[in-house]
């Protein structure tokens, strides 16, 4: 049975826990932003439906790999500490707090009764409060669940989003405003990940005061099926939102929006590029050191960098199953894929594969 053997080999090569192999340069580049520890943490898929959260060092060594009960999605670094939090993916019944240096699991915090997490969260700048988008699933209400890390991650507050299906949250550089992608899609854990309200979705980009929970602004995309999932904010305060279009594949609406100077605008990359993105963006990251923004689409197997002011695409690479994006010191980006690749992309140079590992990176790197 040569085919069976070959397939087994491929499977084990993709998912085994063998040593990391690095091609090209042997050093991973530094992460941008001086607050972050010099490592990358991501959720991974392993062999036999096992899952873990894993950190790798700038020199490519796997620092730690900590098993978790189910597939995780994304997480966040707790500022001023050696802690990193990861969330189970939708419907997420728990989040995990790890020591980011050792990988030791410090906490596993379960979602409150009747709620589940959605895979994302962010800390207040002082590292005390964790803001986690969640779904109150019986009534189908999106909320921000607030946890107090100084009190063992007890629940401290709940903010209403007046909408359905929150996904990513990030902190505006003003330190006060939460930026939330409201996907607009109703789901219920009894029904797997079935989208229950495609005709009546109301996605939005939301701004919320992190202390009062007041919604400061709500921007709606140009089509009600442009699920607003992922968000980022540049150092100058420009807010970016990335969509996942729920309509048919032959329609090619804009997939990225930006908010600045009081205007919410959608950026059109043109039909050919939208086709390459497969109407789906998994991550959007504005570089803290320049005016470049990177996005990745596993559906389209495409990652690209565009100029934040002109909206013009300046670099593009075909990377199968790419999803995670990180900003690197010096102005480049790092893109991760479900096939274990780490690819460096930057202005005016070809995309470069810097590592290939026997793991499947889930959507985001932190």
């Amino acid at each position, binding site marked *: *049975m040569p*085919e*069976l053997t*070959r*397939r087994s080999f491929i499977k084990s090569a993709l998912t085994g826990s063998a040593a990391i192999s690095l091609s090209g340069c042997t050093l991973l580049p530094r992460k941008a932003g001086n607050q972050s520890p010099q490592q990358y943490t991501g959720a991974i*898929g392993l062999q036999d439906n096992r899952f873990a959260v894993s950190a790798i060092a700038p020199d490519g060594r796997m620092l730690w790999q900590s098993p978790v009960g189910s597939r995780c*999605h994304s997480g966040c670094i707790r500022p001023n500490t050696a802690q990193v939090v990861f969330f189970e*993916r*939708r419907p997420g019944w728990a989040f995990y707090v790890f020591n980011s240096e050792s990988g030791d699991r410090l906490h596993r915090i379960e979602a409150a009764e009747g709620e589940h997490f*959605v*895979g994302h969260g962010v800390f207040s700048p002082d590292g005390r409060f964790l803001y986690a988008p969640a779904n109150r699933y019986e009534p189908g209400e999106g909320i921000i669940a607030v946890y107090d890390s100084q009190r063992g991650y007890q629940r401290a507050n709940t903010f209403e989003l007046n909408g359905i299906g929150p996904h990513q949250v990030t902190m*505006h550089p*003003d*330190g*006060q*405003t939460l930026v939330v992608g409201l996907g607009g899609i109703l789901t219920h854990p*009894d*029904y*797997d990940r*079935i*989208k*229950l309200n*495609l*005709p009546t979705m109301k996605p939005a980009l939301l*701004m919320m005061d992190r202390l009062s929970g007041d919604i*400061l602004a709500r*921007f709606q995309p*140009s089509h009600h099926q442009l699920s607003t*999932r992922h968000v980022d904010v540049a150092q100058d*305060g420009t807010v970016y939102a990335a969509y996942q279009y729920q309509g*048919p*594949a*032959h329609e090619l*609406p*804009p997939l990225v*929006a930006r908010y600045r100077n*009081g*205007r*919410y*605008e*959608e*950026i*059109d990359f*043109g*039909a050919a590029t939208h*086709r390459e993105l*497969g109407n*789906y963006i*998994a991550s959007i990251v504005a570089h803290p050191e320049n005016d470049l923004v990177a996005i990745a689409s*596993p*559906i389209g*197997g495409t990652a690209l960098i565009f100029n934040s002011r002109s909206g013009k695409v300046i670099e593009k690479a075909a990377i*199968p*199953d*790419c*999803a995670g994006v990180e900003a690197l010191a010096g102005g480049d980006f790092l893109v991760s894929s*479900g*096939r274990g690749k780490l690819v460096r992309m930057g202005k005016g140079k070809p995309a470069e594969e810097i590592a290939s590992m026997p793991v499947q990176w*889930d*959507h985001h790197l932190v």
Partner: protein
Amino acid sequence: MTRLALTFLLASSVAVSPLAAATANNADSQTIEYRKQWHSDVLTGYQNLATQGQALSSQAASYCQAPSPEGLEQTKQAWLEAFLAWQKVRFVDFGPVEQGNRAWQFQFWPDPKNLVARKASYLLKDEAPITPEKVSESGVAVQGFPMAEYLLYDLAFANGEEALPAGRSCKLLLAVTRHIADNGQSLANDWQGFQSNYLGSDQYTDTTIRSAMAGLEILEERRLATPMGLRGNGKRSVYSADAWRSEASLAAMGASVQGLKQSFLPAFSKLLTDRKQPDLAEQIAQQFDEVLANFPELDRPMAPLLADDNGYKLLQSLYIDITQLTSLVNDRAAVELGVVRGFNSSDGD
């Protein structure tokens, strides 16, 4: 950093450049031929589903009008034929079948919480009349083959007070089979209406290949390996399979492979041959026949085969054949054609 000034609280969306109109003129003249063939072959499958769904609905109506043991058997047979018609086109996971979660309406599965039985019990005990509208608003667990299967086959239900042909149970069976028939008909119509977009958009070639790959992977991993105890907790359990109540899990797998052979393989073989892979195309066609050679011997209940080591060998043999087919399509052909299903792209967030 100063506080973000938010003066325009509800700015309207302003497109930087006009929204790109979907272009129908992008069609790749080479791949449109494959899509023509796929469109026609899937349409044949959808029309068969519409016909069998209609036959099921009519048979259920005759049975409930004049119940008899023979009528019940005939209704079960009609259910099975319609269900197998669905299995043949189940791999198509794009286009009109996405609208309104139609695929889920036809078959809500997996159902680890046994929602189908819970929903049936709730609807049958409720006072409200059981109408097509009631079924339409009750969610996908109520609307398709598994609900009709529960009413027709579930052993505990058949021995209870509400067993067919009890009034409310018959009303539910009628409404559900009507819903299946209507869905089948509108799916076939909508697929015809989808033709120009499908032919006009080159990306549907990859989409179609990915849908077959996903169908094979679900078949191998979730429909077969999981109940065989090769995944998850390692326990053999027929309840992890679909259609265990009707004992049609294996027959349904045979139908799905048959459906891929009829509706997917012809254009796919041509595409592979045109891309200078005639040997691979031939190997894949042969492997389809290898899998199908397990049938009709395996058109039988799965549970006894899981319970008996000799019977289990038959499942292992089917599993190996399906694994080899999946490998040829999802690994070999996918690499040759550059069509890949991934960890993130197949189930993202």
